[in-house]
């Protein structure tokens, strides 16, 4: 028996969610220790005996025993979860309560409870995302720092602070209260969206790590959809968006790890299964009257996913969708994407006009794909020198080797008599 990929990571989130329910959110540290111990004990045996047939069940059983030991060691069970404390103090009821908390349905609720708890309104969005990654996805501080291209110390501080806020809340979020769930659901969706985007567009150079962030975001979104109160049209739209984008993840870099633009991607590498799933989720999201930004972004991703080539892409519809998105959630990046789509629909001159008209373009000053978009359009209308200048400016802003290689190639493409793409297409 082999361990499935990232099993420990997944189980860590489940165990910590169940244990925090038992020990109380203010004893998060104890829950973390118990998880460590459970992993350690299980892994010790597996090293010698091999992986058992059902490693998840084994881990959960070990965690239950470790939890019981921890409760016996500390005889102040009343200070644990307020609603369970009474049962945890008695040796008679303790085991059955723990058994109950580790039941499949209870763990699913616990996971959701934790997800909602992490999106506490007193926490900044980036702190929510870091906390989710740390607690529910088992990322160490170092791994988060790597994924966010941030310093260890900064992430450490962010997580410690976030945990303190969580601990002060005394009680985990109540996922049975429909009104409260509905009120916090947008924050949870937003955090998962940001987590996915960090993986998809983020600055981290390692493709594998970015793919993991996307995968974790998709896993937690699926957990959200598994719960009746989390299963809203917006959640479906979010899941659709993730699936449709993730379908292109493999094709976004060449063998050397350089970024490939939508135009240069080998569309046969797109994951058709994920695209099919995304389109199905998008259909499910169409219920109700709410049109969220997730709906529109998913619809744009679906347009790309359906098109066999750049030429066959329905750019007119995409321009319209970006306009809808601008109305729901205006941002210079959305405006830039609209301008690029206009360039494809009406030609590079119109695209350049649209770029020039972007509101709040100063906020794009550090974004490499802002000058790069200008470069593409200049190149498309044969202004090689102007294009090269824009690509050089973009290159200076590149955030990782993958972007650097991509932009370097665009600079070189301007120098050749024909654009690199035109040449390779022959």
């Amino acid at each position, binding site marked *: 028996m082999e*361990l499935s990929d*990232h099993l*420990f990571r997944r*189980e860590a989130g489940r165990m910590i969610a169940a244990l925090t329910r038992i020990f109380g959110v203010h004893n998060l540290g104890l829950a973390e220790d118990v998880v460590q111990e459970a992993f350690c004990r299980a*892994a010790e045996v*597996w090293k010698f005996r091999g*992986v058992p047939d059902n490693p998840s069940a084994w881990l959960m059983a070990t965690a239950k025993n470790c939890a019981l030991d921890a409760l016996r060691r500390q005889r102040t069970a009343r200070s644990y979860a307020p609603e369970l404390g009474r049962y945890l103090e008695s040796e008679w009821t303790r085991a059955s309560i723990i058994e109950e908390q580790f039941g499949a349905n209870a763990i699913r609720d616990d996971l959701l409870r934790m997800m909602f708890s992490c999106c506490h309104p007193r926490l900044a969005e980036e702190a929510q995302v870091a906390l989710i990654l740390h607690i529910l996805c088992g990322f*160490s501080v170092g791994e988060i720092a790597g994924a966010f291209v941030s310093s260890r110390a900064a992430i450490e501080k962010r997580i410690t602070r976030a945990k303190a806020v969580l601990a002060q809340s005394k009680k985990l979020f109540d996922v049975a209260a429909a009104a409260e769930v509905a009120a916090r659901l947008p924050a949870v969706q937003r955090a998962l969206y940001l987590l996915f985007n960090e993986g998809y567009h983020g600055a981290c150079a390692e493709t594998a790590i970015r793919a993991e962030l996307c995968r974790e975001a998709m896993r937690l979104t699926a957990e959200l959809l598994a719960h009746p109160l989390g299963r809203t049209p917006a959640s479906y739209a979010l899941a659709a968006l993730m699936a449709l984008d993730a379908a292109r993840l493999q094709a976004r870099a060449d063998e050397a790890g350089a970024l490939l633009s939508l135009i240069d991607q080998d569309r046969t590498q797109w994951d058709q299964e994920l695209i099919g799933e995304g389109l199905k989720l998008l259909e499910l999201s169409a219920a109700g009257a709410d049109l969220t930004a997730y709906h529109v972004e998913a619809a744009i991703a679906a347009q790309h996913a359906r098109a066999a080539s750049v030429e066959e892409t329905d750019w007119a519809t995409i321009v319209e969708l970006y306009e809808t998105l601008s109305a729901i959630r205006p941002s210079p990046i959305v405006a830039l994407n609209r301008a690029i789509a206009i360039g494809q629909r009406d030609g590079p001159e119109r695209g350049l006009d649209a770029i020039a008209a972007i509101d709040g373009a100063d906020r794009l000053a550090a974004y490499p794909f802002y000058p790069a978009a200008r470069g593409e359009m200049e190149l498309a209308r044969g202004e090689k020198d102007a294009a090269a200048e824009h690509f050089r400016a973009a290159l200076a802003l590149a955030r990782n080797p993958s972007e650097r290689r991509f932009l370097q190639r665009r600079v070189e493409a301007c120098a050749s008599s024909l654009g690199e793409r035109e040449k390779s297409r022959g």
Partner: protein
Amino acid sequence: MSEFTFLFRGRDYFASPEQRQKHTEKWVAWFKALGDKGHIKDMGRPLEAAGKVVRGDKGNVQDGPYAEAKDLIGGYTLIEAANLDEAVELSKGCPIFDVGGAVEVRPVQALNVQYQELKA
């Protein structure tokens, strides 16, 4: 063929479940490879970290062993190899080295022939 014990010294610590999983997988693969080549006589068992140490003629009982983490014996395995050199060679792929641990390779003393005859 002679018998040897591998005493695994050192306890591991991992900052993340992912790292622990990767490490555990390495151990499983290493043990399996040893077994497939017919070197494992007895897989042995992991040992709990905590226990008691009984010492002296008065039988003093102490909590422990409080060896440093890197010296603590975490488990043992009985293996078969042609000689000590081969046994040492076999130990070399052990994943415990990745976490700063050590493998102590100790020949199991062979019972001498006379003793075996006496017993019979």
